[in-house]
């Protein structure tokens, strides 16, 4: 069986670094194991950044009335692909993928766009009042000719 790693954190920015470092390290170990791994540093950075963005979003949209809200980060793998899901119980959201109009100096709204650009696949599902944002990226060498 492929290893499954689950990390549950309180929805607080205090734990943001734990989430993203965890993602970075899981990605590094995974890429190390995968044969013909791609540029490992880049692979890890993509995970570190994407999980950072997703976790930040989960914390931002958590309702302040429920301070004990939790965010679950779930890693699983399949052959050469690593998947990570960010699961929270926030209200449903619209996973926009559009790039913000940079010329207007936007201070936010880059998060999901970045995730889409960094990852191979991104999917969003709403089930039993939970949001599940799943992202995957392949660790084997991909050359763009």
């Amino acid at each position, binding site marked *: 069986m492929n290893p499954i790693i689950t990390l549950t954190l309180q929805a607080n920015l205090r734990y943001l*670094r734990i989430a993203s470092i965890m993602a970075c390290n899981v990605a590094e170990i995974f890429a190390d194991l995968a044969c013909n791994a791609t540029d490992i540093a880049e692979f890890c950075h993509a995970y570190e950044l994407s999980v950072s*963005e997703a976790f*930040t979003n989960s914390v931002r949209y958590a309702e302040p009335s429920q301070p004990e809200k939790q965010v679950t980060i779930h890693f699983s793998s399949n052959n050469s692909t690593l998947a990570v899901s960010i699961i929270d119980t926030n209200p449903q959201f619209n996973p926009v993928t559009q790039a913000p109009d940079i010329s207007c*100096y936007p*201070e936010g709204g*880059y998060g999901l766009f970045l995730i889409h650009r960094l990852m191979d696949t991104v999917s969003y599902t709403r089930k039993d009042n939970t949001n599940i944002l799943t992202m995957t990226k392949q660790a084997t060498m991909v050359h763009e000719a």
Partner: protein
Amino acid sequence: MNISEKTVNHYTILSLQGILNASSAPTLRNYIAGLPEAQSLVIDLEKIEFLDSSGLGALVGIARKKKSSSAVMKLARMNDRVKKVFEITQAYTLFDIYDDVSAAAEA
């Protein structure tokens, strides 16, 4: 995140060190808010280990404020990881980006 400050010419040079994400971005915003509004800035990013979109948002916000108060804000010494975030979001179009702090602090 650590911020160290020095002054060269009429520029305040802020050297950032560490992580610039959603939890540390307020630190940077507050620090800048403590400086005079029309103060021109050079932000040295060489020692930034990690930047995410919240960190980028903070930088963009500072750039917008400086622009409206006719002050200058420049970025210096972006490393590859920082560059990647700028490249994807095309945020490089909003900044003057230098590979050297002293060059940025002239003119």
